[in-house]
């Protein structure tokens, strides 16, 4: 799409959407959000950027192939399930740890790692589909 307004606003919009998607991902365990919805937001960011600057540029900016990102997501999600092996718990048992950080504490857990995996899987899959569809448009 060649309108000046859209081309100017798209990079900023993409950046905001990606940051927001990470926010949604991390708040997801106890509040609305999570890996799936975060991944969808990030994938829409990729799609918008693709419409504005062309698919080739998005692929360059992403560095990694979207399908590889999806594979990475599935891999670390499965890995998160395996972490409970050492603790004699069944597969996918959630393990929680707390790191003190000033007055508050940061929660790290295997469900979060799993959610990050879901995030990458969704970004990769939906991103690959969106870019493939936009490439079709570029050909015309």
């Amino acid at each position: 799409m060649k309108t000046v307004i859209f081309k100017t606003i798209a990079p900023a919009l993409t950046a905001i959407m990606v940051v927001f998607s990470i926010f949604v991902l991390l708040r997801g365990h106890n509040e609305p959000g999570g890996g799936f919805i975060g991944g969808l937001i990030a994938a829409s960011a990729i799609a918008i950027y693709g419409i504005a600057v062309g698919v080739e540029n998005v692929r360059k900016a992403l560095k990694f192939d979207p399908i590889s990102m999806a594979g990475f997501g599935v891999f670390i999600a499965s890995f998160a399930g395996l972490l409970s092996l050492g603790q004699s718990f069944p597969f996918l048992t959630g393990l929680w740890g707390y790191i003190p950080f000033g007055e508050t504490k940061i929660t790290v857990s295997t469900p979060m790692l799993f959610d990050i995996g879901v995030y990458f899987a969704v970004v990769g899959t939906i991103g690959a589909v969106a870019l493939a569809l936009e490439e079709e448009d570029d050909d015309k």
Partner: protein
Amino acid sequence: MASHSVAQTEIELPAAMLELPTSVADWSIVFPVVIALMAGALLAMVRHSRGSQVGFSVLAVVAIIVIEIDLFFRVLENGPVAMTMGNWLPPFGISFVADVMSVGFALAAAVVTLVVLIYFQAEIVPRESRHGFYPLVMLLLAGVTGAFMTGDLFNLYVWFEVMLISSFGLLIIGGKKIQLDGAIKYGFLNFLATTFFLVGLGYLYGLIGTLNMADIVLIAPAAEPAAMTAIAAIFFLAFAMKAAAFPVNAWLPASYHTPDAAVSALFAGLLTKVGAYVLLRILVALLPEQRDVFDPLITAIAILTLIIAPLGAIAQTNLRRALGFFVIGGIGAILAGIAAPSVLGVAGATFYVFHAMLTMSAFYLVAGLVERVTQATDTRQMGGVYASNSLISIMFLILVFAAAGLPPFLGFWPKLLLTEAALQDADWWLAAAILINSILTTIAGTRLWAHIFWRNGREGKKSELSNDRLRELKAPEKTFALGASVALVLVIVVIGLRPNLIFDSSRVAASDLLQTENYIEAVGLELPTQANPTTGAPQ
């Protein structure tokens, strides 16, 4: 991983979860699925570097086979074992249950996958588009193994989706027009079947409030029988479609011949058998009372499938389409076991699934060799292969006899059990249909054999002229494609001559399926002490 090291020092677990620690040995229940899933994910990440793909996927499948062999003998000796995910109590957590049937089938699936991976190396010029092959095969194996191992019906649906999506990808690798045509038919009918499955799941959950298989066994007898019968009917339709039983079998011969022979072999060995396995599990173990209601229908469908499938094979001229009908005929034999659900019948069906996985895959692999040698897919264009390549023709004939069930080949033993079960059940027509199926399959198979191997030249040519389109197998084809096929056929012959282990394990699998106490105990649910079936709630 930061979370891991921290987690080791401080662990908080809510109450009302499992108390007992899970031993590392029990992890072999989930390892086959996890290894296949992670290997598929890794291969998808590096799918542009071809060199590492082959070695890594073979390594992963070998690891899966080793774990499953160990698990199989453990389960055979000590009965089913289960693991419920995430430390939740069953029936809330998703259980993976390994009994003889599920591990045995998963093992056969992994062996078939290994053979197909090696066979695929015969592809001399790998095209760019083939790079998705290895990750998709691993994900297909993950889906199939997950479907065999899971003890939860909704989780089963998820594994079916994994299977469907990866098989969809495999079906269209190469992107030929005929493949897209096959993929549409395959995809549409399978999506339809999956939708029926999902509808059935919704009704079942609405009615009895659980989808854990062990829990269903406990609660189902107390539920409204008419509604349960409707649910069983929906499941029966859905999985009969997945298994390609008559009259909902049209998608199979329309699609299985379109992709690469290696992919066809994988599909023939794995996909329909999962549908057949689920029919066994749901109708025999979970809803036996509803199965009794449908007994005449199942018997009729088994008879029709047994007889019509080989007739379809006789009518075909395309080699791999004809083989598709052999696959369907095997499903009829498995349904015969469900129609006569004594220990004998279910053991026969179990044995038959095992046999069909190996034999049908080998059949498609050998058909791929025939297509390579004759450079044709239609049997009318084939001929004279016996003179040029006797090894292929011997393998083909062995597989015809194994598929038909002639002694002493592998297919004879399950058919023996099934016929005996049908006779005990006084299903004369069923017993007759099993025998007629053997005769018709022999006719169809030997007809193919005569056309491809015995006849000198192609159809329409003078009989003394030899086939001028034959070519020699190239070196990599000889090593990988021929080698893998010979290995699989040898396995089939050896098991056919020494079937004792499979006999014994089939009997154990059948009695575990009919007497579900061991299964329920393994999952960790309490057995009802009196005749009060509503005590299916967790401890």
